[in-house]
C-alpha cells in the first residue's frame, strides 16, 4: 500500500514552479500483526486489570517492565516466580521536550514531552506521557501517579514486543500528585 501525499518537510526551500522535477516523495505503509511473546502478553493482560507488572532479576534485583523473561545483564531467565506488581506512583527523573519537525505520519504539531519515571518501591519506565501538563511545567523531581484509560475504553492493541512507548491504549499517561518535588538525591542518575 502506498501513499504519495506530500509531507510538509521541506518548507525551508522555496519552490520554483518551472524547475525540473528531480525527485518525488513516495511513502510506503506496511500493516502487519505482531505475535506477542508470552511475558509481554502477561504484562498486557495485567494492564487490562489496571496492574503494572515487571520481572525482578533474582540475581541483581533490577526490575524490568515490561518483563523480558530474562535479565540481559546477568543472562539469567526470569519467570512468573520473579513477577512483581509495581506501584503506580513515582518521580519524574528526566524528560525531553520535542519540538516536532513535521514528517509524514506524525500527529504531533505542538511541542510535547516524554518523561522517564522512577516508581515508588522500585522500577523505572521511560518514554511516558504527562497529558494535560504544559511542557514548560515538566521538570525532574515532579511526583506523579498513573492515569488509566477508563473501563470500556482500555485496550492493549498497541502493546508490542519492543518495550515502552506502545501502551497508550491502557495508560493515558501520568498526572502530578501535587506533592512537593522530590529531592534530586532521590532520583539523579536514573535516566532509565
Amino acid at each position, binding site marked *: 500500500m502506498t501513499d504519495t501525499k506530500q*509531507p510538509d*518537510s521541506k518548507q525551508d526551500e522555496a519552490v520554483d514552479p518551472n524547475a525540473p522535477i*528531480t*525527485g518525488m*516523495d*513516495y*511513502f*510506503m*505503509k506496511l500493516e502487519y500483526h505482531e505475535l506477542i511473546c508470552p511475558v509481554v502478553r502477561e504484562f498486557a493482560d495485567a494492564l487490562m486489570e489496571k496492574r503494572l507488572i515487571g520481572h525482578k532479576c533474582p540475581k541483581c534485583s*533490577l*526490575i*524490568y517492565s515490561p518483563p523480558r523473561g530474562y535479565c*540481559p*545483564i546477568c543472562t539469567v531467565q526470569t519467570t512468573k516466580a520473579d513477577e512483581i506488581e509495581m506501584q503506580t506512583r513515582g518521580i519524574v527523573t*528526566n*524528560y*525531553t*521536550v*520535542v*519540538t516536532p*519537525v513535521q*514528517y*509524514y*505520519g*506524525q*500527529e*504531533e504539531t505542538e511541542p510535547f514531552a*516524554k518523561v*522517564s519515571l522512577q516508581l515508588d518501591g522500585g*522500577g*523505572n519506565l*521511560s*518514554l511516558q506521557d504527562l497529558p494535560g501538563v504544559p511542557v514548560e511545567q515538566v521538570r*525532574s523531581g515532579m511526583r506523579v501517579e498513573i492515569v488509566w484509560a477508563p473501563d470500556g475504553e482500555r485496550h492493549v492493541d498497541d502493546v508490542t514486543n519492543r*518495550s515502552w*512507548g506502545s501502551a497508550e491504549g491502557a495508560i493515558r499517561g501520568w498526572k502530578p500528585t501535587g506533592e512537593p518535588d522530590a529531592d*534530586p538525591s532521590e532520583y*539523579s*542518575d*536514573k*535516566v*532509565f
Partner: protein
Amino acid sequence: MSSQAAAVIGIGQTKHKKKRDDVSLPGLVREAAQRALDDAELNWTDIDAVVLGKAPDPFEGVMMPELSMADALGANGKPMMRVHTAGSVGGSTALVATHLVQTGVHDRVLTVAYEKQAEGNAQWGLAGGRSGGMGAGGIFAPWMRTYINKSGAPEDIGWKVAVKDRQNACKNPYAHLHLPDISIEKVKESPMLWDPIHFLESCPSSDGAVAMVLTNEAGAKKAPRKPAWVLGTAMRSELGTFPGRDTVRPQAGVECAHMVFDAAGITNPREQIDIAELYVPFSWYEPMWLEGHDIAGPGEGWRMVEDGSTQITGDFPVNPSGGVLSSNPIGASGMLRFAEAALQVRGEAGEHQVADAHVGLAQAYGGAAQYFAMWVVGSSLDAVGARK
C-alpha cells in the same frame, strides 16, 4: 591473531551540502572513491575488495543499496560487503577494511561511506513511519541534562562547542555549514529543539560521501604521499536500554577507549594524542566523550572546552574539521572522523591542519550510544613512542 601494519594511503570526500541534486547515489559514492584513488595514485583495478557503509536504508528509502552500487564502486568480481552499526557505521566500516589488510586477506581495500539525506526523511525513518518520533536529539537530551547536572558545567559550554566547530568548518572547504558570523549570542538565541539543545547546537542534515584506500606496509612504502599508519583499532557495543544504565558514560565507550589506547601504546591520552575527531552531533557530546573516554577526568571535560584546550590552537584540538556539527551525511559521519584524523597525521588537512599532529584519535558512536568504533593513527609506526 597475527597482524601486520595497515595504513591509509588515499583519502577522498565530496563537498557536503544540504542537497546534492547534481549526482545520483552511485554518483555520490563514486565521486569520493575516485578522489581517494587519485590521492593514492591507484586505479580501480588495483583494488582487491570494497567495504561500504551507510546508516539505515529508510533514510533514503533505497533498500540494499550495496547491490546496485557494486558497479559504481568497481566491485564486480571482487569481494564486497556492507557494514551497518547505526551512526557509528562509518567508523566500523573503516575498521572492517583495516582488519582485512591487517590479517593479510587483501593488499588494497577501498572503503566508502555515504548518506544522501535529502533523498529521504531521516525523522520519518527513525520513527519507523509512526507518530511520536523524538529524533536522535530527543533521546540524547535527557542524558546531556544529566551530564550538566552531575558535572556542574555552566550552560555556555554547549554554546562554545557549537561556535568552535562552526569556526573550524570555515577552514574546511568540504564542510556543509559555513557560518562565518556564528557567535555565542546566535547559538543561544536559536530555537530550542530539545532542551537543553538549541538549533545551532545540533548537526545539520547533509548529503555526502567519504572514501579511503587502506594497504599494508609494502603498499604504504610505494604510496606517492605520506601514509597515515593505523596504530590501534577498537569496537565495542552494549545494550541500548537497561535499568540503571549509565547513559552519560556508557561502559562500551570506556572499554573501547581503553582498548584502542592499549593497542596504540597510549598511557596518557591527553598528552600523547595531538588531535581528536570525535562524533559530536550535539554540542554537549564533546565534554561528555572527553570524560566518557577517560581523556579528561570526571567533571574535567567541560573545563577543557572552557579553557580553550579543544580549539584548533589548543593543546587537545577536537574536531578541527568542524565535525558532525558542521557536516552530517549520517552514514559517512563516522568515517569522516577517521579520514580527518588520518589527514591530520599526514599533514594534509590544509587550512584546518593542526600544527605538529603526529598521533590522531578518531571515534564514532551510534544507536542509543550503544556502538563505538575508534582508531588511533600516526605519522609513523613509532609516532606514539616518539611522543613519550
